């Protein structure tokens, strides 16, 4: 441990953690409101989850169990390194099992396994401002949030329908939180939007480069915006997971060869593995016993 003796627990100094915790508490008190915070330099580039890592570092304690997913997967570079980072600087236990984790840091997915009381989901957010694409002025977007002027959000959805015949936004789909603030749920697929609604878990969002933190407390109403004649709909997949046969889950496309071969598998790797362990088999999958 001598090589990290110069680091404080969980990398950030205590003053910084206090500052970030204050921002988090304010975010929880005003669900969906973007709280500015003094984002720190982290030992990783922007875009690799500096906001999420700072939030996690500020709330994590020695007894926490951390899970990190990247697009649903526990085994990608980003997820593996962040897990290693916290093992090193906080000496905490890590897991890939959703049910065992107390803190789940995520990039762009919500686990298929419903979250429960006491769990915290930390999102890595690249652009927190849902109005940004149509209104470049920060002063103006802040005013629009303050005065609840959200017509512009529907302009974006209108454009979608005008161009595509339906609301083509499939990720970062805007939601209204507790009937007040319109929020960008980070680039999660809109498939996951309904999971945010009345979730038992505390949901925290950290945008490092943009220096914003926002939150959804447990059991909060989260409604996806839509039109009366074009209601919000989640993506549906016309097939089950090729490995575990799960239906009504979010699937990733996997290219198998250079002749057009491909398959669709659960984006949530932990969920998929558990199903296969329980004996579910998809059309291209093998039973777990056979793999071993």
């Amino acid at each position, binding site marked *: 441990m001598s090589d990290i003796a110069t680091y404080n627990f969980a990398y950030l100094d205590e003053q910084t953690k206090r500052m970030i915790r204050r921002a988090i508490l304010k975010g929880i008190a005003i669900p969906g409101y973007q709280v500015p915070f003094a984002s720190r330099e982290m030992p990783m580039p922007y875009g690799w989850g500096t906001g999420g890592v700072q939030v996690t570092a500020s709330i994590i304690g020695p007894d926490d169990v951390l899970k990190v997913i990247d697009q649903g997967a526990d085994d990608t570079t980003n997820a593996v390194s962040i897990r290693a980072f916290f093992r090193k600087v906080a000496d905490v236990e890590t897991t890939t099992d959703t049910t065992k984790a107390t803190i789940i840091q995520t990039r762009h997915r919500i686990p298929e396994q419903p979250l429960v009381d006491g769990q915290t989901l930390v999102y890595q957010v690249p652009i927190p401002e849902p109005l940004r694409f*149509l209104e470049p002025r920060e002063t103006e977007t802040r005013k629009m949030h303050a005065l609840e002027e959200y017509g512009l959000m529907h*302009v974006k959805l209108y454009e979608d329908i005008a161009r595509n015949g339906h609301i083509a936004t499939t990720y970062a789909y805007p939601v209204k939180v507790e009937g007040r603030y319109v929020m960008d749920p980070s680039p999660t697929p809109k498939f996951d939007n309904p999971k945010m609604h009345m979730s038992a878990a505390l949901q925290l969002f950290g945008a490092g480069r943009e220096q914003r933190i926002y939150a959804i407390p447990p059991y909060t109403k989260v409604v996806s915006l839509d039109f*009366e*004649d*074009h209601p919000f709909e989640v993506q549906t997949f016309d097939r089950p997971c090729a490995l575990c046969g799960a239906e009504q889950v979010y699937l990733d496309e996997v290219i198998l060869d250079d002749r057009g071969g491909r398959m669709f598998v659960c984006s949530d790797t932990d969920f998929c593995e558990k199903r296969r362990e329980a004996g579910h088999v998809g059309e291209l999958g093998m039973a777990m016993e056979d793999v071993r």
Partner: protein
Amino acid sequence: MNAHVSSRADDGPLLRVSSVSKSYGARTGCEDVSFELWPGEVLAVVGESGSGKTTLLNCISSRLLPTSGSVSYRMRDQTWRELYRMSEAERRFLMRTDWGFVHQNPADGLRMTVSAGANVGERLMAIGDRHYGNIRSTAIDWLGRVEIDADRIDDEPRAFSGGMRQRLQIARNLVTSPRLVFMDEPTGGLDVSVQARLLDLLRGLVADLGLAAIVVTHDLAVARLLSHRMMVMKDGRVIETGLTDRVLDDPREAYTQLLVSSILQV
């Protein structure tokens, strides 16, 4: 439709401007301007650049806090409200429902990167319209009224000519049936033939809808064609006011006579 104009005009003024002054430090923007505007009435504010007419327009359209004086408006529920005692939320709501503002440069009043239909529909969505089909058909109707073909509804204003952009800006403002529209040099920067078409269109819309309007212009021909009444400004003050054709045909003040005599006759 015009029947309303004369009857409504008897209901009393819509806007009361009392002793409005705006100074920028030692420099005067406008000074001690007072007038009333009645429903259906079009007032032209003329003067050369620097005369304070745009400052005045901004002061009475809630875009610039006056140094002193007051601006009161009769709301749709007939109550009088003082503009700068309203909350910002109320003022902004007024601006996008019962009021309109037509900028000289259409890019200042349009969202250049969203379609014409969304530009027209934005105000509807802002006041809570959540039916795509209705919003779209209203937008098509308004594009037609400003002489833009319905098949341009999904084009961005970037692809429009200057005259079309200005007409789109007008449609975007009028879609919520405002009772008062502010216009800042609405025909400035357009070719003469395009100007004539726009003026004629504006003239028709203002008359058909019974709109009250305040038009800032340095072009006396625009004032003659659009307005009932005129205010001539010089050095921040109103120096002459009256019926538009009276001011233009029998100007009293030296400066007004100079302005009128400076018009090129063709």
